Every structure is written in C-alpha cells, then in structure tokens.
C-alpha cells in the first residue's frame, strides 16, 4: 500500500494523523480517498504538488502509485 505522509501544515486537517497507507492505483484515486476521509483537505491539496518517490509533480492526477510508493505533499514551486 502507498504510504501517504502529511506535513505539520496538513495535520490539522487529518486530525493529527501523520501517515496513512492507502491501496490506490493513481494520484487521482488517492486524492479522492483523502477527500472522503478528511473532508475539507481537498481545498488544501489542490494548492499543492505531489511528491511520489522523491519526484515532484505539480499536477499529475494520473501518475501511477506503486504499492511501495512514498507520497508527500509539498507546496508548488515555480521559480524565477
């Protein structure tokens, strides 16, 4: 199951949960699952990029998640 980590900025929305394991095939399903478990978190997550196994994607709902995948949410970065 993919390990999904929540930074301290997101934990108020997860009731303090730092990590959950989800059996989801792609980023999109993961986001849907999280919105169901933690209503309101989707508003925060929309603003964020998703890091899957160290690679950061600004907007990649169809990115596949492996059973061993580590997922973090990070603010979107553009740059100068």
């Amino acid at each position, binding site marked *: 199951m993919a390990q999904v*980590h929540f*930074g*301290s*900025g*997101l934990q*108020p929305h997860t009731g303090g949960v730092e990590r959950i394991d989800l059996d989801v095939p792609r980023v999109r399903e993961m986001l849907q699952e999280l919105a169901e478990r933690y209503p309101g978190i989707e508003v*925060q997550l*929309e*603003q*964020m*990029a998703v*890091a899957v*196994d*160290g*690679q*950061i*994607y*600004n*907007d*990649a709902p169809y990115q596949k998640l492996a059973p061993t995948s*580590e997922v*973090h*949410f*990070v*603010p*979107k*970065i*553009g*740059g*100068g």
Partner: protein
Amino acid sequence: MSERKFKYVGTRPIRHDGVDKVTGRANFGADFDAPGMLHGALLRSPHAHARILSVDTRAAEAVAGVKAVLTGQELPKLQSMWMGGAEGGIDFRDIAENCLARDKVLYHGHAVAAVAATTPEIALQAARMIEVEYEELTPVLDLEAAVASDAPILHDDLQPIGATDPLPEGPTNIAGRVEFSRGDVDAGFAEADVVVEREFRTQMVHQGYIEPHACVARIGEDDQVVVWCTTQGGFAVKNYSAMVLQMDPAKIKVISSEIGGGFGGKTTIYLEPVAIALARKARRPVKMVMSREEVFRATGPTSGTIVRAELGAKRDGTLVAGRLSMFYEAGAYRGSPAGPGAMCAFGSYKIPNFYIEAHDVVVNKPKVAAYRAPGAPMSTFATESLVDELARELGLDPIEMRLHNAVDEGDQAPYGPVYGPIGLRETLEAARSHPHYKAPLGQNQGRGIACGFWFNAGMSSSANVSLHADGSAVVATGNPDIGGSRAAQAQMVSEELGIPVERVRPVVADTDSVGYTDMTGGSRVCFATGMAVIQASRDVVDQLRARAAQIWGVELDSVAWEDGRALPANGAEGDHEPLPIEELAQQMGRTGGPIVGKASLTAPMAGPGFATHLCDLEVDPETGASRVVRYTAIQDAGKAVHPGYVEGQYQGGSAQGIGWALNEEYIFDERGEMENPGFLDYRMPVASDLPMIDTVIVEVPNPLHPYGVRGVGETPIVPPLAAVANAMRGATGVRFTVLPMSPPRVLEAIDA
C-alpha cells in the same frame, strides 16, 4: 547515461543570438513599432495607501493628440481566485488591480489611470491632468507594523491561506502561513551542546534587469490581438491578459522580443492588458514602455524579510535541532516566496528535529514578483550564518562542519520527499580542495563559506525541429531565451542529428507557432524544454532512418544513425553506402515529404541543485567600505550542455547576491515613497566592483534527464548573502544580521 560520449554537448559554441546582441541589432521590448501607433502613459499614485474616491479624466481627454483614456473601473471586475503555490501564487483579481487600481491604491507608484496619445510626451502630460481624489490611509510599511494588532488593514476581505492554526481572527495583513517540522524540536535543543540564536533582516531588493518592461498591442477589426513584448513567457502574457480583460485567449497572440534580463521579474504582467484595452478603445496600436523609475516603483522586487533563527549542535558538530520563524513581505497583494524560503532553509543538512514557520504578509509596497530562487536567499542567509557561528563556537572547519551534516541521496528533504542523486557533498569537497580555500588572507580580509539549495522546476514544454533541404535544421520552442538557452538547444539538436551547431538555427516561436510552453523560469528551460528538444530531434532521426530504409529497401531496424549519417546495421553492414543527412534531406520530397520532429511533455521537478560558494572580503576599517577580493562559485550542474553559459549563470547569480549582501536595498520615506528609484542610488554592483568570479562545475548526473542536466540558473543566488556575511565576520569580528552591509552600517558596527 554517464557513459555517453558527447560531441557537441559540453562544448562552447558562440550563441546564435550573440552577434546581433553585441552589435545592437537585436530587437528588445521597446524596439518594436507599428504603423499608426500611439504611446501609452500611466498616472501613478502619489500615496502608498489610499482609497480612490473619484477619477476625473475630462481634462486629459480634451488634450489634443489624446486618443484614449482608461481607468481601473473600466476593466472587468474579477472575483478573487487564488491559484496556489508556495510562492508567486496567482490571484487574477490582484494581477488586474495591480495593472490598474480599482478602489484602493496600495503602494506609491500604483497605476491608477492610463492615456494613449500620439506622442509619449502628450500621453504623459495628459496623464498628469487626470484628477484623482484620494482618501489617504495610514501606510503599512514594515513587517512589524503589518502584523501589529492595531495595524491598518490593506484588504478587508483577505482570507489567510495555509497552515491555519495560530492565524488571527478577523481582518489581517497575514495572508498565509506555512509550516514544516520533523522530530521533536524541544528535545533536539535539549540535546544540543551549543545553541546559537539570531534575528536576521533583509530589505526589499529588485532583480535589476537592464531592460524595462515594454510592449506594443495591436487590435484588428475582428478583435484579434497581437502583443509584442518583453517577457519570460509568451503563453503567460496571453493567458493572463485574457483573464484580466475577460477575453477569449484564442484572440491573443504574443510575440516575445529578445529579453534584457528577467530573473523572475518578467513572469507576470503589468502593461500588456492596459495596452490592449487602450488599443481597443483607440482602435490603434499602443506602445507602452516603463521608465527605470517606474520599474523600481511599480514592478515586483523580492521581499524584505525577518527571520528569527535558532540552531543547535553537538560538540562534534552534528546538527540536532533548528527552529525558524520567518516573515516575508508580499507587497500590496498576497504571494511572497515565504513557502520556498521555508522549504529551502534547511535543505542542505540532515537535521533530525526542526520546526519552521513562514508568514506571507501584505504591506504598502510594490507587489513582489519572483526573483531567482524566490525566498531561498533570505532564509539561507540566516541558516548559513548560524552554521558558521556554530563552527566558530565549536572550533570546527566550516567546510568539515558542513560535510559532517550534508544531505546525500536517500536523505529526506525538509519538505518531505527523499533526495535522489545530488551533488552537495561533491561541491563541498571541491571547495575544500580548491586553491582558493588554502590561499592566505591579507590584512583586514575575511573568508566566508556558504551552501545553497534550489529545487529547479519541470513543467510543460514543446519543441519542433524542422529539417531543411540542405540538411540544416531549425529548432523552435516557446521559451524566451534569457541565459543562452537557444545555444544549448541547438547543441542538443546537433548531438542527436550529428550536424554542427552552426547548422542549427534555434528560434523563439510566438504563441501561435509552437505548442504550449510554460515560462522561462525555475531554471527549467535547459532541463525540461531541452528534453522536448531532444525528443523532437530523436523524432527527426527516426524519420530519417525510415527514409534511408525506404531508399535501401530494408527494415527500419537495419538502419542506424551515427554522426549525421544513416548506416546499414543489424547484419546489413556493408550492404549500402552511408547516407548523410544532406542527401536524405535533399530527397525528403520524394521519400514522403518534409521532415518535422515534434515533442511536448510535462516534466517533473528537475532535481535539486546544490552549490558551495567561497568569498574573500576586504574591509576598510576606517570607512566600513568593503571589497570582494576573491569569489569562487561551485555548483552541481548535472551535465553542463554549454559550460560557458553555465559558468555565466554561476557568476551572474553570485554578482546579484553580492549586491544584495553589500549595498542593494529599497529605501522608503515615512510616507512609503521609494527614495532611490534609479541605478545611481539603488546600488547594484558594477563590473569594476567585482573580481573575476571563479567557477567550478561539478557534474552529478540527474537521472530525470537523458543527458543528466539539472537546472543551474537559480541556485547561484542562494549562498552569496551568507558567504559575504561570513566573510565579513572573519574580516571584522562582527556578525552582521542585517542586510545590506553598506559602509555606514559596517563602520557603525565596527566602532560600536
């Protein structure tokens, strides 16, 4: 990947746009004129904070030669819509009201109304005749005043975004807050043998691009708009302008000019929607060009900051805990780079316990824009200064101290995910063995070391590679070329096709002529657009192989491509004479038609770039004046496609960072008017201020790119603030926590 032998990548050809630039032929933003063109001018606010009660344009409209007058009320009223991001997030309502104020002016120089007239002089004079009635409000001019409980409020409807826990209730100037943490920070500090704590301050600084913003907008009788402008992204100008004006973006075509510097400052829009709206009213093309003063007063610098920082280590130098509380000025509207500042602050080190909070705070100053590694230089100034202090207190060599704590592949970044292959350790080792580090210091000299980190963006890019009948090629992408990207792209085409760089013509295409491409920014062009170029080139190669297979009457896999020629392969060796690209190109028409390779992609973040800088500074103890006497910038480029332009990025970022450290700052009077809106008193370094900046390119290949490329443009501005401050500490014995370290400030501290 690292095994690959390159023929063109890694060489230093003269850039294709170079001769026109050094001989003055290149067309920059202000160089374009259209027949029948009018000139636009803006009336700007004399107040830093005021309500607009009325705008009377009658006198201006009556001036002979005036063809259109525009106020903020005439632009569509937009709903707030925040497109989030760690920095430079976008609210199109804010962008629109920054182009022309609607109900309130939020900084001195905020555009209030615009005029188009037959000459620039008439336009300016008429603009001054527009009568605006203001209700003056108390300006909020610094971070402490902005977060005070009784602070005047800039935006009554501002809703804080982000980690919401301790945000105030009711109206606030705190637009957002992020936090990052790991471990148990209190326990970490309890475990530390030495703890250092300081408060760091930096002032608003400008990118200082030499070319002011400029554009021409033309509208046809069918409402099709063409905009010529200087920008870091033609597609951004197209889409943002359409949003601000509530137009169909399909009606806007943007042709980007050569660009005289951007550094992030040209990733947003100021003039373009105004010029389009004026052109629409006057039914004539309108040109708008900012003066240098307007650039300083009313475009986006980067934030002034307060960073309260604390760092603890064990006696052996192991970092065990860190705490940062940071405040970043957003300027008039939300969207400072507090987020990436927080994410980068501890990016270089393994720290088991930390807590970082960063606030985005609105103040009555120009709205900040992206500036090279947005947010990172300020937070890194704090953390790298403290690492230096710890090394001093513990009696450790500053490079050894950093090596002891440096992040490696597999370590977790402070913002969550683990790092892939990275080159921080390699840059530190290169610094340790560099002659600079061993060179003796003279009297009144000090040496500073600092590291820096930046993410490097990915995002969307497109490229077309077209083959000409003579076997030469054109590569077209949608990225304005700031740092030599055209030369690098031509080299990539050369590498894949096997033709000399001079036989490749790299082109910056307009928004009607190439697939969607995100901005030139985030150090992404050589990486992400480069990947599209390589893929498009490989598409051309596949088509060339197919043509050769057709000519030879063999299967595709019996044709190899090497050094610009199709060769029989897979057992067919020797059966046919090699077919050079020139011959295949000449036969394109009869073998299936012209050959165009194309590629479009969305790349993930490019893989972090790390740097270590060394700075030697000499201080005149009687005047406080300082001089950088030696400077070495060492950085992991992954793979340097054009080493000369990679070095140029290292040198340019270093120079900007040194200016930030020593002399650059926005100086405001008590009413919020900038007192130094010109290069005379906004003291960027000039060439003679700096030594030749030495560079070392470290190459730890990036697995995300076929050649191993990483972004290189932004990281170089991250270490210098602390590198210079650490050198100043060595030269004077004083730890400077406030930038800039200008001569009066230095002398005062030395004499104290």
